[in-house]
């Protein structure tokens, strides 16, 4: 589907309003003071890019990346939240054209009643479409549906000079591939066309089963290969024979719809004191959670949102980790390495007594299109494990150990979650990094798109 977007008339630079803000990642590890512009329309975005006064800049969506991908301390940020319009929809093809600040929740609210779902919904519906492009996000259906970029028909990309160009798998494909998963470093996505997924109802039939240990888990995932949706929760504190025990959820679309649940109601009213999250309390919680599922498994039909975004019901749950925040670590290991690699990762976390509250395991089967897509290369097919790690004095050392284990097993760390990867690790884990940097050098020779993450990873 094609939609003609109006040409931009760039406003005088002096019209751009900047405000000092302190941005945070979802892990709340610290805040990055910067100058932020919040355009309400495209030409204001162009003017903001033209008027950085030598500062570098990065797009910032809903700030749902855990680490520093959307932060730019001492520089500038372009907040995309007010560029939030849906521009066109073709019911025959399912293609939606929208501005980047439209959230996944918006898309679902409008289109699920019409029988369409976002093709690869990540675990939070608060993320924006621009953020979904820039991290090439995946959902619990990755093994079948791939990543977000696989469903993008084209993008409008605003470059450092404020000019916009359309890129797609056939039109300037190299820039397209650099932008999918490009963590905002090629420019600002100002519009995109994404093909939505046709679904029979708003509901899913979810099956949950207890899994006793790691090897059983990997087998269960393989056995569930044909399930449209699958995801596993892991009790990261269980050790010994129970190492890797958890609950596997698989789901299919239900034939009929259910009532729409009320939107986020509960909120974390304050930062939880850190001592609440000691290994003992988390251990007790995890054990109770595991036992709640009957030994023979259970099956329920729920609204898709309940299955896809379980944490979104508790607003501000990231405050659970207290004022010092938390890291999230997510890696992808090639299938052959997964049994040993995952074991070592879980043992490493267990030894550190890091009280990982939420650990999620998932099987990934399709390569993404982006040069920096998380899902690519040898690691596909493979298993991805995500862990929360509360920020403590020793957590950096733990993250370094986890990085080594990941590398030793030919794995890769996910940038959407990352706050600790080393520059060397980046080079080793992202084989197309050289090509990516070449595209950046061509599109943005002055290096104006830059973030805390890009500088930490040595990408400039």
């Amino acid at each position, binding site marked *: 589907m094609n939609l003609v977007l109006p040409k931009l008339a760039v406003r005088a630079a002096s019209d751009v309003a900047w405000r000092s803000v302190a941005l945070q990642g979802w892990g709340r590890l610290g805040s990055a003071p910067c100058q932020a512009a919040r355009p309400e*329309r495209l030409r204001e975005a162009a003017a903001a890019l033209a008027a950085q006064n030598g500062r570098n800049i990065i797009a910032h969506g809903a700030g749902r990346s855990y680490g520093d991908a959307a932060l730019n301390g001492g520089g500038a940020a372009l907040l995309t939240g007010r560029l939030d319009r849906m521009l*066109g929809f073709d019911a025959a093809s399912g293609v939606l054209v929208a501005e980047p600040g439209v959230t996944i929740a918006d898309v679902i609210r409008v289109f699920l009643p019409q029988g369409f779902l976002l093709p690869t919904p990540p675990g939070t519906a608060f993320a924006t479409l621009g953020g979904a492009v820039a991290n090439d996000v995946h959902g619990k259906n990755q093994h079948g549906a791939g990543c977000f970029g696989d469903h993008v028909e084209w993008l409008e990309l605003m470059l450092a000079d404020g000019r916009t160009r359309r890129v797609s798998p056939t039109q300037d494909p190299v820039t397209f591939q650099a932008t999918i998963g490009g963590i905002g470093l090629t420019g600002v996505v100002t519009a995109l066309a994404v093909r939505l997924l046709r679904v029979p109802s708003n509901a899913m039939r979810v099956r949950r089963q207890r899994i006793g240990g790691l090897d059983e888990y990997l087998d269960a995932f393989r056995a569930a290969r044909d399930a449209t949706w699958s995801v596993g929760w892991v009790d990261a504190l269980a050790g010994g024979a129970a190492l890797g025990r958890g609950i596997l959820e698989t789901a299919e679309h239900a034939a009929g719809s259910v009532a729409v649940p009320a939107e986020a109601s509960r909120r974390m009213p304050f930062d939880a004191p850190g001592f609440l999250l000691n290994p003992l309390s988390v251990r007790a919680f995890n054990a109770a959670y595991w036992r709640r599922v009957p030994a023979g498994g259970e099956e329920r039909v729920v609204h898709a949102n309940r299955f896809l975004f379980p944490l979104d019901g508790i607003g501000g749950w990231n405050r659970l980790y207290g004022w010092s925040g938390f890291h999230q670590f997510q890696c992808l290991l090639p299938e052959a390495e997964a049994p040993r690699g995952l074991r070592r990762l879980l043992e490493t976390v267990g030894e550190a007594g890091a009280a990982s509250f939420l650990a999620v395991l998932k099987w990934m089967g399709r390569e993404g299109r982006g040069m920096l897509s998380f899902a690519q290369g040898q690691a596909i097919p493979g298993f991805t494990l995500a862990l929360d790690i509360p920020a403590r004095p020793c957590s950096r050392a733990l993250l370094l150990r986890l990085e080594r284990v990941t590398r030793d097993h030919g794995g890769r760390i996910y940038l959407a979650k990352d706050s600790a990867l080393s520059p060397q690790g980046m080079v080793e884990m992202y084989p197309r990094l050289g090509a990516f940097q070449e595209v950046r050098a061509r599109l943005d020779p002055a290096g104006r798109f830059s973030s805390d993450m890009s500088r930490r990873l040595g990408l400039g």
Partner: protein
Amino acid sequence: MAAPAETWLVLGGGSTIGRAFAQRAAAAGAAVLLAGRDVGELERSAADLRLRHGVPATSVLFDALDLDAHRGFARACATLAQGQLNLLLAFGTMPSQADCEADPAVARRMVDTNVTGAASVLTALAPVLRGQGGGTVVALGSVAGERGRPRNHLYGATKAALGVFLQGYAARHARHGVRVLNVLAGPVDTALTWPLPKLPFMASPATFAAATWRLARHGAGQAHVPRVWAPVMAVIRALPNRIFNRLDL
């Protein structure tokens, strides 16, 4: 879908508040006309309203400063409207007091927009409202118009002038079924306030629009949004000058 029973004409349809209000109106099934200077931009917002809410939404060219065009504009709106035409007056400018003092042309432009332009377009639209047997007019006034403060008394003066105009306009057209509501707005997190330092009781556009939409159903006269500003402004209005003048508001 049934034909809409009402159409909301948003004057300043590209403003943050206007956009948020249009979402509420469309969610309630009303058709929307977005009026402003940047028609390309308004067309994008109109597309969004149509997609999200399945209501008719159209953009119309409108410049508050182009007084001669207001009558023609009013006639065009009358033709475009489905069901009863209602109005939200949501355009306005707020250059800083310092800029207004440094350059009288800046001050004049603000007065021309916020007062002359507003009065002119409402006057041009009055026959349309009367002709259809009535209608609702909601205008965005401001707490800044309730007592002149050092920081923005020129802007405040335009909102005070608008308020007086609206009183007379309401009285004049009341018996023809026209209901007028002057919303005394506190700070809203919009493009207008983005460059300013943190303001107290800042409302999000969505919250502000929801409250304004509820009031728009029945309210008349004037009302504070968010409501907390009613008691706050009562105190501020009551402060004796010798105290007020010492506060750097």
